């Protein structure tokens, strides 16, 4: 959140604006990630695209661990290996926590 803190410079309205910018993308993408065809591993390319889209956002927010998990899974799919449900569940968990934290900061 360092970059958001730096940009908002103590202004709570600005802080909410930046948090909302990220939430607008993170929330729908998390839902897409939880869809049946992703969880069953039927749509690997879509999963790779979602991971690619989200990884730079979580990295900008400063969630390095989530970024690393996403990057590793994206790389795995890019190499033609199959992403399994057990690969995805920790990422979904980390994202859910991140979104909850961001939402709490809006309150």
């Amino acid at each position, binding site marked *: 959140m*360092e*970059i*958001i803190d*730096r*940009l908002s410079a103590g202004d709570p309205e600005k802080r909410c604006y*930046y948090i909302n*910018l*990220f939430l*607008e*993308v993170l929330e729908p993408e998390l839902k897409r990630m939880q869809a049946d065809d992703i969880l069953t591993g039927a749509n690997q390319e879509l999963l790779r*695209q979602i991971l*690619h*889209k989200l*990884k*730079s*956002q979580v*990295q*900008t*927010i*400063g969630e390095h661990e989530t*970024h690393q998990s996403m*990057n590793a899974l994206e790389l795995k799919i890019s190499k033609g290996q199959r992403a399994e449900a057990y690969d995805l569940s920790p990422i979904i968990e980390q994202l859910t926590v991140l979104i909850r934290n961001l939402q709490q900061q809006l309150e």
Partner: protein
Amino acid sequence: MSKNLKIALVDDDKPNMEVLHDFLVRSGYHHIEKYYNGEDFLKSLHLHDDRAVVLDYHLSESGGMNGLEVLEKIKHASPNTHVIFYSGQDSLDIAVESLKCGADDYIVKSAAGVVLLKTAMDKVYQIQVLKSKEKRSQILSWAFVALWILTILAFTIFR
């Protein structure tokens, strides 16, 4: 201090684009244009384009051009335009390829990347300032030579 450098941000990632835009504005760069795909940016490109371009590698999931293809077109149309890659693709191969194709720098998207990009912009700005100083001093020397020739001519004619 306001810095007179025009910047074009080309990225389909809205939150990162907004963060980058606001950070650069806070750093004194006020002439910033935003493009959400490579095609729209290329339509605005012209010969001797003096904008510094910040380019994402992975521009579109829907089959649009990627950053390297956009870079090649930029360098073909306006070879002196400064291009800095700002990408979520943490790949050494792509970074090397982009530098080979004429990019000035390759920065991976992150919180630290935003600051690095601002530093890269400062470098481009310094280069532009030096170039315009050089151009101004060249114009001044030509004006001095012209004045000197005119003085000699006037002296010869009116003597």
